[in-house]
């Protein structure tokens, strides 16, 4: 009885929590889930009057079903989150199904016990247990279950309890039920299934990445290199790579204008341009605003990215079809390897790699790579490197600066505010100490002008230059700085 009651509430809590993980906005999610759940319980109770014979048998079957559906519900929801168009329908369907079944439980149970107790004792006992069970559930759920078991294991665990109840009843009341054997076998089978789920729940969890995104996923694809996800809401489109936000259409212009124009404006009629990373074509879009440019070489590892941004109409709107320009040559290759072999000189090089959050990417921020960049830069050319947040990760930011200087570059660090990211930093690098803040920028920009850029080169006290080691292939200090700084920021 007690178990039955606890299980009932747990499924509801699981569904509510999941909904707020996956869909965001916990108050609405929780209250609509609870509403639907209670309403379905009402339906269940109503339906109970149509069950007239073999009550114990029905009860057992319902227990098995509750165990099965409730137990697998969270895994199903996690797994189907990306596959199913209208996830909400599935969510509420599962919630109402569980609710209805749970709603059937109590009336049936009371009727089964009818002959065995006096009515007032029966009502008092059943509801006492029901409410105590509910209390227990609501306490152990946030305090014990979620932190220790996680959602998926919690549901499996209670599914198992439900089915165990079914099994015990089936064994105890063997003589009073028809199809006792069938009931026993099916409860054993369900039990086995749930146990397997319990054991493999870590794997299930890793399949389902969905709880990272609060908006609707409109595109999801795994390339050999990364997981590409596009989400959309009324206001903006967002791109995530391996779960990390790459841009939001609402404010990416700030980021890309700051990446491109201070350098481009500082070069006398730039002709040849190289973009490393940046497969979204957004930097290229900015670069194409300069008519002196005759060629742009874009080197991005992932063909899936450059293809997506050359074909998807929503994205073509954002990057203004930049990758389709006849001036643009897209090369899908590893930037390090490519740079090592190429022999051309470029006037402007935009380096837009992912943050140095692991050793693989960390290589792209080493003095070895910067030496190759030095070799690839025209004498009066300029390079700009995106260099993580100087506010969150000042040591990392200044490490990129130091590393670039160590190979002979003169640098101009600057930073700007991009709402989706925070305060973001760039290092501009030149072969001569000759950079002057441009007196004018292109007229048709949305964000940057001479005055704005002047401000960007000012670093307030909490972002002042820090001593940092040179990042090398054989020490990867940047990855260590970066990990430490972001981890403590996110705590």
């Amino acid at each position: 009885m007690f178990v039955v009651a606890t299980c009932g509430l747990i499924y509801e809590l699981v569904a509510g929590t999941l909904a707020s993980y996956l869909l965001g906005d916990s108050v609405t999610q929780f209250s609509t889930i609870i509403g639907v759940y209670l309403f379905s319980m009402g339906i269940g109770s109503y339906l109970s009057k149509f069950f007239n014979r073999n009550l114990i048998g029905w009860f057992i079957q319902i227990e098995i079903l509750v165990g099965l559906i409730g137990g697998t519900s969270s895994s199903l929801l996690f797994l189907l989150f990306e596959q199913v168009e209208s996830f909400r329908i599935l969510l509420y369907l599962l919630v109402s199904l569980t609710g209805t079944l749970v709603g059937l439980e109590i009336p049936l149970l009371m009727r089964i016990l009818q002959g065995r107790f006096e009515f007032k004792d029966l009502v008092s006992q059943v509801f006492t247990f029901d409410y105590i069970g509910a209390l227990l559930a609501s306490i152990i759920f946030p305090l014990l279950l979620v932190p220790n078991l996680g959602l998926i294991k919690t549901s499996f665990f209670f599914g198992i309890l439900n089915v165990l109840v079914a099994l015990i009843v089936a064994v105890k009341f063997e003589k009073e039920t028809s199809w006792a054997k069938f009931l026993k076998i099916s409860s054993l089978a369900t039990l086995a299934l749930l146990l397997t789920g319990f054991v493999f729940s870590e794997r299930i969890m890793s399949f389902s990445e969905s709880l990272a995104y609060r908006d609707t996923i409109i595109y999801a694809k795994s390339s050999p290199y990364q997981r590409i996800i596009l989400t959309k809401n009324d206001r903006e489109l967002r791109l995530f790579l391996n779960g990390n936000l790459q841009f939001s259409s609402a404010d990416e212009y700030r980021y890309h204008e700051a990446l491109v124009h201070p350098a481009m404006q500082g070069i006398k009629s730039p002709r040849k341009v190289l973009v490393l990373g940046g497969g979204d074509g957004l930097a290229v879009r900015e670069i194409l605003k300069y008519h002196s440019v005759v060629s742009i070489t874009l080197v991005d590892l992932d063909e899936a990215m450059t293809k997506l941004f050359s074909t998807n109409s929503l994205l073509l709107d954002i990057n203004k079809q930049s990758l389709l320009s006849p001036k643009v040559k897209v090369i899908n290759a590893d930037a390090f390897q490519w740079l090592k072999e190429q022999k051309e000189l470029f006037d402007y090089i935009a380096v837009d790699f992912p943050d140095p959050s692991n050793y693989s990417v960390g290589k792209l921020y080493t003095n070895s790579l910067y030496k190759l960049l030095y070799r690839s830069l025209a004498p009066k050319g300029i390079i700009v490197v995106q260099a993580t947040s100087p506010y969150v990760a000042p040591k990392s930011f200044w490490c990129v600066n130091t590393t670039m200087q160590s190979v002979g570059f003169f640098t101009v660090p600057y930073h700007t505010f991009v709402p989706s990211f925070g305060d973001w930093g760039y290092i501009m690098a030149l072969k001569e100490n000759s950079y002057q803040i441009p007196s004018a920028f292109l007229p048709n920009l949305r964000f940057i002008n001479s005055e704005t850029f002047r401000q960007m080169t000012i670093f307030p006290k909490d972002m002042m230059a820090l001593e940092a080691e040179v990042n090398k292939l054989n020490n990867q200090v940047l990855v260590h700085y970066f990990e430490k700084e972001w981890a403590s920021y996110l705590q």
Partner: protein
Amino acid sequence: MIGPFSRRSFFRKSAAALAGLTLPGMLTECAPATKLTKVAGEIKGGAASLGHKLRGEHALFKQAPSQILNYEYVIVGGGVAGLSAARWLQKNNIDSCCLLELESHVGGNAASGKNEVSSYPWGAHYLPLPNLDQEELLKFLQETEVITGFNEQGLPFYNEYHLCFDPKERLYINGYWQDSLIPHFGVPEEDQQQIATFLKLMDTYRKLQGSDGKYAFTLPVENSSQDKEFLELDQVTMLDYLLSQQLDSPYLHWYVEYCCRDDYGTALKDTSAWAGIHYFAARRGVAANAETNTVLTWPEGNGWLVKQLHKLIQSKVCTGALVYTIATEGEAVHIDFLDVKSHTTKRIQAKKCIMASPQFVNQRLLPEIPLRDQNFYSMYSYSPWVVANLTLSKPMERKGSPLSWDNVIYQSPALGYVHARHQQLNSHAAQQEKLVLTYYWPLADKDPKIARREALQKGHDEWIQLIMDDLTKAHKNIAQVVEKVDIWLWGHGMVRPTPGFIWSETRKKASMPFDNKIYFAHSDLGGVSLFEEAFYQGIRAAKEALGSIAS
């Protein structure tokens, strides 16, 4: 593109961690012992090696050679020592020279292989930064652009692509991959204290010089101080030495034994304390752009260095040539060998012969000559090694630090594995791609003769089972991702510096030439199996040979 951790992605990570938190270990660690379905691959070396197969060709060896060739110099053996000797002769404008190597490739214990995923070593895989007084070696590294220049203090700049990338080393201990090979994760304070004491002691030895002005421990071995107090260390085992210093921590003992097995293939109780300390104290290499303890490495390991040496002297190399007898006759030395391809025997009449083959081989090739008697040869013993190259369809699971160059499992009988693609530049996630791991296993537990015999009897399946059982400790799913395992059995992998060997009178005289005709150049002459020693021995022997011709 930027990729800050978004709050959500961080949250997702913690949620995933939570989901996985339950009953840690209980469900995962009791996974059944790996039972493997057939894994592809083969055993090379050992019984499959040419040398082994040709043992039965005695009848052929008794007949007169079918062809007589003439060279001024012959080098027997194309390992690092032989190649280094050939390079030296070349530098001294010797044209009439032939290097005979029984295998189809040069390199010996520094051989390497390659498949569609990566190049990989079959044996030696790294070179620590050389000491500044190893001038010839530094020169060679300059010639090959491993050293790109020197700073004002005379410290070399090393080519960054050849310095081992970070992360370098990881140890799996107490269920977790920790940084560095020195045990610390979950290691009691007192043991850590002992480890620190020991390392400090070794650091003192590193700097120590004897009354003869030489370093107590250095490379080549020959250049080490001859002060009695140091040489006496050769009389005791490394185990006894540790105990005599009140160092009894099991963690420390494991670590030092790991080092002895790594450099010599010998257990703590079988290694001379002089050799054991040598591991820690003989390297003082410094660089303008790297730390002292850095190493040079390549996807194919020291196979890369072998290729550079080979390039220089390619035209002098004759592979598939099994030398079976050497004899002096008048002014000449006769080198008889089997040309494996044509299956005929040939003779070279030479003025000088440099034996760059190990002493256990020389025992069979050479006539009885002074000093080299039964007694002499019986001092040389060699540890058998197993090296396996595992091709994985994707990276295996691991807890803790990410895959690094050298990955060692605490208390494993083997030495763990090296990630062959570590030095590749491709920045993109090795995380999703195929890997090659080179697994090293010195068979140091038993007497080498017994271990060698047992090893020769094991089949491919048996080795794989043993290797998987070991690796499964640290990587639950390794059996599911392994595609292919090739195995190389080194019957005589490394000379064993057992107590009393290195500084015995016999060993000290081992490289003495015979009759101004036969010279010796193998790393085992120094008593330690190291690239630096092999490289040096080759040059020393070549110099001796050249010197005597001039006279």
